[in-house]
């Protein structure tokens, strides 16, 4: 059992938790994730490691409530226990000194982007963070990003905070104005990653995207997470989750993500009605 040590609400439906999991913290690296199962009847869901602390034996996760499992996790309070947490899973994001690295994250991609940004900064890069949110009330981790970014560009879809526009607009302007980018890392909604990768392809900038397909085991055993990269079948959990964005079939990923939409709705409705 894995105890929730602390919890905060960062924005509507976006929560941060700290979980006691010394065995996960021990070998954790930026870009990796855990799979958790809340209880005996629970589903296994992946969440990325936001932060971790080996000495104190905990990990931190940030998640958005989108369906049954994430809403239920959102209802857990400090002291409550999660039945299973396994990880760190997936390959660490390949971190090196590229020169200037631009990290483009959208929505709840931000916590994942954060871990990678921090690692890129520690590796000596000049880091430029571009983060986008729906509107002002959804802006999260601004201070955290400020601390580790050489340049921080925040945008909101509706213009209610800082500026109006999508992360793609910001990246394009940045590059058009002569902004340097030797490497781009992107994480967030699939459509955003797709558009970002189109831009960086025009500019010929090496780009990795962190993919988030449906997963079951997270260890390479089921193939639920398969994605097409450069025409080949890859398992995001074992071969990724980061891939060369210019090779990824984003449309296929988008399609596969909604495979269980009707069932997810049944599960969520039942949960909201107080079933369990």
């Amino acid at each position: 059992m894995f105890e929730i040590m602390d919890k905060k609400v960062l924005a509507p439906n976006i929560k941060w938790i700290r979980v006691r999991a010394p065995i996960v913290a021990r070998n954790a690296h930026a870009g990796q994730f855990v799979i958790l199962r809340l209880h005996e009847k629970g589903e296994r869901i992946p969440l990325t490691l936001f932060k971790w602390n080996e000495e104190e034996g905990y990990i931190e996760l940030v998640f958005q409530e989108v369906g049954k499992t994430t809403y239920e996790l959102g209802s857990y309070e400090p002291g409550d226990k999660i039945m299973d947490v396994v990880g760190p899973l997936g390959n660490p994001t390949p971190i090196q000194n590229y020169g200037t690295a631009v990290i483009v994250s959208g929505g709840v991609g931000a916590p994942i982007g954060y871990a990678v940004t921090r690692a890129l900064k520690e590796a000596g890069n000049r880091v430029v963070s571009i983060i986008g949110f729906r509107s002002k009330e959804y802006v999260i981790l601004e201070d955290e990003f400020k601390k580790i970014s050489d340049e921080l560009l925040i945008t909101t879809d509706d213009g209610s905070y800082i500026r109006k526009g999508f992360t793609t607009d910001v990246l394009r302007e940045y590059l058009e104005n002569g902004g340097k980018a030797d490497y781009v890392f992107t994480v967030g909604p699939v459509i955003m990653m797709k558009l970002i990768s189109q831009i960086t392809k025009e500019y010929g900038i090496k780009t990795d995207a962190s993919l988030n397909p449906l997963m079951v085991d997270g260890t390479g055993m089921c193939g639920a997470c398969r994605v097409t990269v450069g025409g080949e079948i890859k398992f995001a959990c074992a071969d990724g989750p980061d891939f060369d964005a210019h090779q990824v079939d984003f449309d296929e990923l988008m399609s596969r993500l909604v495979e269980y939409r009707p069932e997810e709705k049944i599960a969520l409705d039942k949960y909201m009605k107080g079933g369990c």
Partner: protein
Amino acid sequence: MPKPLKKQRVPMPEQDPKERIHNFNEVALGYTWELALEEASRCLQCPVNHAPCIKGCPVDVNIPGFIKKIREKDIKGALEIIHETNALPCITGRVCPQEQQCEMHCVMGKVGDKINIGKLERFVADEAKKMGIYPEVYIAPNNGKKVAIIGSGPAGLTAAADLVKMGYDVTVFEALHDYGGVLIYGIPEFRLPKEIARYEVEYLKSLGVKFIKNVVVGKTLTIYDILNDYDAVFLGTGAGTPNFLNIPGVNLKGIYSANEFLTRINLMKAFKFPEYDTPIKRGKKLAVIGGGNVAMDAARSALRIGYEEVYIIYRRTKEYMTARKEEIKHAEEEGVKFMFLVSPVEFVGNEEGNVKAVVLIMNELGEPDESGRRRPKPVPGTEFGLEVDAVVFAIGQRPNKVLYQEVPELKVTKWGTLIVDEKYRTTMKGVFAGGDAVRGEATVVLAMGDGKRGARAIDEYLKGEPWPEKIEPKNF
């Protein structure tokens, strides 16, 4: 006058196919005492050192010996004889391909039906369990040495059982949230109730084996971390990574590996959705590609979650199917439709990206391949379509590389299986391996045999046998 020998085997009572396709309860119901005694009475009691049945058993169960004890109504005695070489009879009795092993050689076959050895073995194990009888085991005093077992499938569990009895401090590490490997996530409830694997794990715990779940070795802990804390390691990590055919449409929605399909149903209990949170798609028509046990399990599970038409698509002919005969028969009784000499060439999707048809091509059998089986050859121009809502790939699995992708010392074959020698030693000092991880997809009883011999080899190593300069690869 002795009674004349009964030629026919005593059939095992089974759930009616019409009923059983609506539930996940076990299909074969087990012998009663009366039936078991009748079947046992048919055995000719061949002398142990000549009994042909024993030669067919990969773990040398003393078959006439335990059958004699059944006749004497001595369950404890029968159990103890089996346990001399087989720690998991309630599992092997259910899932061994007996017709290719012990039963294949039974001399009764010359005059009538072969003895139903598997069913009798299961009877002994089940009856013992019911009566709360355990075999008497001797556990050597703790010798201060620690052994780590990676993977809790039949190979790992068997190695753990033997090592703990030899006095080692044994810890089993498992990646998933439950123990048993394929026994819990692959083989369905209606063939092997999960409670049986659980019972065996509890028994091992009672002998002192420690179990730690949610540890993916290679990620959570590396093999180097483990070698720091343990004197020897046994890798029983199986062959868990599924193969797909890279043909057009393979990633359409509704196309699964058998592992995903069965894991959702067995391990995650998707058949009880929404009581359990994990969903599974329920449609009308489903095609399974493959002809082994895995394919039969997927097809029969599909019927049970409500698919109305289920096809087995196999590229060779019926006699080449690798599934146990009993399972093929069960699948036929339940209404699974078999299509032989066909292979998929493409999947067609609808606007939403869901699979709606599979395009198949007819094969003819050509020259035999390395396995001696005639190789299927597609016949150009014979393509045809089959409408489906879902497809399950059951075309084989290879070992999962997560464990050793960053361990250059561990050498693998071109199939990705770990290289070991006669004594199950890998190319890394102190690290042993067995089961599907070294054989590729094989069987439960072969994995158990490896676990047993692996345990013996670990014991010899930890008692001072030197590690060889060079590992001479054993061929499986």
